[in-house]
């Protein structure tokens, strides 16, 4: 009798629990289906990381490290690119897949028409891939993002073939935008599909300029085609928010520390021109303000054992750069005008290179909130070293871009490599293998370990067997 009383409840418990057993492994914490717009939002948030990069701004020598200078002395030149693939790119690929697969495309219309979602995802993918190839050169592209198909070790593609495909992607994406619902979750253009078209075309113009030295014919054709499709007339900015989860990264790094100041060479160059953008770029030093005599002082770039005190050098502007919701530029009207100026200088278009160049500088002044009279602008423009001179267009555009692209670090680093202007300084005891100013990022150890065969093939085929930062990329002719 006893035995039944005791053990039957135990057995009952065992049996009752069996019923739920097979359903127990359904994850209650994470959804199996989401609105595809939420994947686009997440991908776009990654743009905030790309345009707010500290290392990019250091490599362009817009800023200098104040005390701990290893970053600016290129210690991190070897870097992994995997997070860009597993993060935004995989999200965007998933948006494309879900909008393409006949089984799922009907389920995802809540985030916009299939064609519009695909178009936005393709444009953003192109943006990220260009960002990556401009840093590393050859990267996995045609076989990338295909783990679902069993490809875990994608091969590397040449930068040329990537550029060629990106031109097509941008052209096709802009063309497939239809009159259906705009995308949801779009934090850049709010679902305005016309803006996406212009953004795609502008990216294409900029890409065409990037390859103009190495493949002028292709560059010219793409440029003219993109230009004809229409380009942006307002700066495209990444809109950080006044809250800590989405704040400007410069604000974050200055929240408790004071690690960066405007670089001395940029500050000297701009001071020499009395450039009115300088006070928009950087704050007067704390000590000079305390002493009642505010001045802007740059920090020498890449000193090995710097002894400068943070209060004696100028931090990036607290109203234009490092406030919590200060936007940072993705691509600007000034860049479009510089591109047009260069296209004119190269003879691709008939309009005046000088006028475009002037427009570019003026667009930059506007972008940075300079208040000026035409006379002031003319006075600035008429200085030697600023005034247009067709024979010297590389230097002029390089130097003016350096200023206009302030804090668009990675973009400026690419433009410096292509234009070989401005003249940047070599840090003391550089920590990169080439010991010069780097011409590319070195592939990270993750790829070497996890995709070793393709990595080795890429180094042999595209880098002459030497994965260093001293190897020129395909578009970097000299």
């Amino acid at each position, binding site marked *: 009798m*006893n*035995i039944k009383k*005791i*053990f039957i409840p*135990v*057995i009952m418990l*065992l*049996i009752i*629990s*069996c019923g*739920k*057993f097979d359903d*127990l*492994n*359904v*994850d209650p*914490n*994470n*959804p199996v289906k*989401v609105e595809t*717009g939420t*994947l686009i*939002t*997440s991908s776009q*948030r990654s743009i905030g990381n790309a345009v707010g990069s500290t290392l990019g701004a250091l490599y362009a020598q817009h800023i200098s490290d104040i*005390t701990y200078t*290893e970053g600016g002395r290129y210690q*991190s030149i*070897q870097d992994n*690119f*995997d*997070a860009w*693939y*597993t993060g935004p790119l*995989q*999200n965007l690929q998933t948006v494309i897949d879900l909008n393409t697969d006949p089984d799922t495309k009907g389920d995802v219309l809540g985030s916009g028409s299939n064609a519009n979602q695909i178009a936005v995802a393709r444009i953003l993918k192109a943006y990220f891939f260009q960002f990556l190839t401009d840093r590393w050169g050859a990267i*996995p592209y045609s076989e990338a*993002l295909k*783990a679902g198909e069993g490809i875990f*070790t*994608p091969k590397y593609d040449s930068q040329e073939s990537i550029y060629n495909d990106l031109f097509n992607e941008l052209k096709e994406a802009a063309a497939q935008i239809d009159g259906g619902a705009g995308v949801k*979750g779009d934090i850049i253009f709010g679902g305005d599909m016309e803006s996406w078209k212009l953004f795609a075309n502008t990216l294409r113009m900029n890409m065409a300029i990037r390859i103009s030295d190495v493949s002028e014919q292709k560059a010219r054709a793409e440029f003219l085609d993109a230009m004809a499709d229409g380009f942006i007339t307002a700066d495209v900015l990444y809109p950080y*928010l006044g*809250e*800590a*989860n989405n*704040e400007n990264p410069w604000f974050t790094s200055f*929240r*408790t520390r*004071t690690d960066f100041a405007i670089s001395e060479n940029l500050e000297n160059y701009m001071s020499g021109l009395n450039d009115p953008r300088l006070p928009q770029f950087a704050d007067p030093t*704390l000590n000079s303000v*305390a002493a009642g005599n505010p001045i802007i002082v740059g920090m020498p770039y890449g000193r090995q054992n*710097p002894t400068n*005190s*943070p*209060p004696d050098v100028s931090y990036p502007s607290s109203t234009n750069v490092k406030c919590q919701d200060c936007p940072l530029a993705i691509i600007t009207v000034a860049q479009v005008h510089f591109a047009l100026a260069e296209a004119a200088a190269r003879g691709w278009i008939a309009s005046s290179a000088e006028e475009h160049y002037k427009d570019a500088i003026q667009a930059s002044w506007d972008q940075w909130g300079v208040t000026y009279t035409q006379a002031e602008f003319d006075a600035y423009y008429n200085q030697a070293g600023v005034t247009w001179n067709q024979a010297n267009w590389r230097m002029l555009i390089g130097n003016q871009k350096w200023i206009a692209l302030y804090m668009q670090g990675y973009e400026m680093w690419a433009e410096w490599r292509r234009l070989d202007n401005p003249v940047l300084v070599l840090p003391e*005891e550089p920590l990169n293998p080439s010991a010069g100013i780097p011409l590319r990022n070195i592939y990270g*150890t993750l*790829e070497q370990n996890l*995709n070793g065969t393709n990595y080795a093939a890429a180094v042999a085929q595209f880098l002459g067997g030497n994965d260093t930062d001293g190897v020129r990329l395909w578009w970097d002719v000299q």
Partner: protein
Amino acid sequence: MSRKITILLFFMFAISMSWAQKTITGTVKDDAGQPLIGASVVVKGMEERGTITDFDGNYSLIVENNAEYLIFSYTGYGTQEVLIGSQTVVNTTLMEGITLTSAVVTALNITRDEKSLGYSVQQVDAEELTRVQESNLVGALAGKVSGVQVISGASSSVGSSAKMRIRGVSGLTGGDPLFVIDGTPMANNNFSSTTGGADFGNLMSDINTEDIENISVLKGPAATALYGERAKHGVVMITSKKGKARKGLGVTFKSAVSLESVYILPSYQDEYAGGYDQNFIDVVDPRDGQTYQTLEYSADESWGPRMEGQTYRPYWSWFDDENYGQTAQLTPNPDNVRDFFETGITNTNSIAFSGGTEKLTYRLGFTNLNQTGVIPNSKFTRNNVNLGVEAQITNRLTLVSNVNLVFNNSSGRPSFGYSPTTGNSVQSFNQWFQRQLDMERLRDYKADDGTFQTWNIRSFNDPGPLYWDSPFFSVYENVPTDRRNRYFGDITMRYRITDKINISGSLRRDNFNQRIEERIASGGLEEDYYREYVIDGQEDNYEVIGTYADRFGDISLDANLGGNLRQNRIRSNNAATVGGLNVPNLFTLGASIDRPTVSSFTQAKDVQSVFGALNLGFRDYLYVGGTLRNDWSSSLPVENNSYLYPSGNVSFVFSELLGLDVLTYGKLRASVAQVGSDVDPYRIAFAYGLGTPYGSSPSFDVPNLLPNEDLRPAITTSWEAGLDLRFFRNRLGLDLTYYVNNSVDEILSIQVAGSSGFGNALINAGNIQSKGIELGLSATPVSGSNFEWTTRVNFAKNTSQVIELSEGIDNYLLANGIGGAGWGGLTLNAAVGEQWGLLRGGGYTYIDGSDLPRINANGSYVRTANKDLGSILPDFTGGFTNSFNIYGITLGAHIDFQAGGQFFSVTKMFNNYSGLGIETVGNNDKGNPIRDAVADGGGIRVDGVNADGTETAVYVEAVTYYARLFGFHEEWIYDASFIKLRELSIGYNLPKRMLGTRIQSLNVSLIARNPWLIYSTVKGIDPSEILPGANNLIFEERGQLPSARSFGISVTVGL
């Protein structure tokens, strides 16, 4: 369907048998002729058949006619085996402290005779555990079991973690052994961070060592196949103290107090002040217009001026208070770091009531542990209640129940790790601090107006903190609190169906609820912050076991068959403020300025199991056993969720055949076993991850881990062989084990090229082989009535080799080092063909034919990236315990040691980078200070070779030399070899004649924990205490809190 039937099957197993029986009676006395109450009497070979003696030492037991031996045992007394023959009255006398044979607790709480076991089990008894009142159970085992490596958190913390590794690693990602108390599996999670912050202790640190009777460590899966997958890394079986039948109420009271003080600190230089170079800075004070000599206040490094008593304006002369404008002499404060620490006090009081009759025994224990740490404002209390009851309800039915309650409370647990945000004040001392600073000045960190003051001000006219708050701000304002309530225990009913067949059913539960609150106060360096983390974990086990024991002539048999349902449930909430607090120091989530981060998590997993074991014995010298277990795991794909695994073992007690006087006991044993394992829940199906929302737009991400619908259970196979020898009536003992353990086809989250779109993929892969030897040597070199010396040495050597990973993969990244690529990219790896836990990072470059490293023309070392820098696993580990008994005074000393096992020290790197370390001063071979400019004959001489192998020497500025060694891992990798005197005690048991009638026993002991780090290869760091919170992969010391040592006294009174 079929498994339900299988679980029920053994209930049909109720076939009863009968045998001719007789009743044996007798009396058990001690050597003084006093009756022993509650001594155990069992029939040999049928240990479940037994009774205990009553108040007069008498017993009565029904045995089969063919029963041969009775075994008499009593705690603290030697066990006796007595031949029954034709007797019906068997009296015996037990001798104190002499053990002839021993029973051990094995899997599923079944007690078996040690000689029948074909695998190694090592026991640690209560006395060993509580000798010096170590509060963490895991820490208390350090060095006491061969093959068990214990790595502790800092002893200067309160209630900190300890981690156990048995036989190196079994499996690629390491793991913890399963802890089981009275048959109830216990959680040993750790909810500390793995990189920094407070160390909240591993959950097994909840267990009160005062309530423990005995611990058996089952090291290989052979011993543990019956516990399923979690026994893969070994099982630590804990038996709690039980009540014994006796006259009246037994009361034991124990009180111990010990004082802790900080012990190991790095050696600091005391020659140079703070700054980035040796020049003073002239500042014009705007108040008086005078020019003053100052240090570079914003610097947190120590490359400043030589301290020669110069007059200067210290940082505190710029605060707007009565000290404004003062000057001081620039002199070192050699003891400033030590002055920060306080004397900690640990106070343990416990009381236990026990007693009972033949039908009912009970024990109720209560222990209060109260600790104030050496780090100011750190406190910890733990209260344990333990109730154990065994009631014989009828002569067939027994009820056993153990109920335990644990209440932990702590505030101000100190932070470890390299992270100023979590306020590791010691990180500041050892890495970023200055020698001229006066700790007493820093103690007044709060100004009259409520603002906070620190040494590392931004500049003379901006006295806010730049990199560091005052260390006192960290400990008094950023106070974390936590609380953990736990209950665990079991209710077991045992029913004797026949004399040979027993059945028992148990309900077991372990439930904990932990709440952690972290704070960063308003007004300091960091943005104010509050975080709440609440986790509720529960494991239930429903277990039914039937046992059958019989004897057929020379052959004994015991078998068991059981079923178990395990249910694990976890629920947690984690929330933190973002963007600061809207009212200063309002530590509530509602005060978050921006949307707080919030996450909820629930997890459920069931494992259903049936298992059986069969053991056969032949003439008490040859034993063969086997087990079989099948599990069904809810977290595996339905079609692959069933897995079966066997084990077998054999034991041969050859001393029974030899009959040598010298060889008291000799046994050869061998076993082979498999154990299956599954995977965490929710790993087989795709689900999106919740991202950070942008304003009101939610964001989701494709997960980084590619799930796998085709996972299979993994199987670990191990075998071991061993020899146990005891000579001269146990005066000398030796046990030796050799084992090989292969983890094959593990379920791994293997890293894949991120360019595929996923960072990790789950696959079945790999083969990790651990093998090694374990040696235990025990001896009683001297044994007299007034002097006895016993000693034990444990030694174990293990290698864990990565034989293969997956196709095309030759390395599995276990972890990235601190700072990632920016700090030079240190990694911890499992590389094919190498010892598990291989460190790789930047290091020196050598060319053939030279012992000197290659250097560049400027004197910098040529760096080789991704260089193999050794494994984190030690070459060998062990312990050495001695106890002496001299005229009633007992002296115990326990040493543990380790050789090898590499780790990277962030403290050492920054200690020198920042110019704090003693290594950064002194003279070079020219007789000039190395900190003088090279141009003036100073600098550090760097010897090396050029590319062509020619030797060269270059002088490098000291600051440059150490700056170049930042992220140069090889220089900062140390060998964790140590020899440590961990425990020391001197005790005296007052003779009974001095105690009168009320008091049964009284012991007074002087105790010391960690009194002496006898040997260490790394100066200033205790390599036995580098456990970073919950991090299982102990390969980095990121800012260790110093070790502490304690001295105390304990008094134990038995009534």
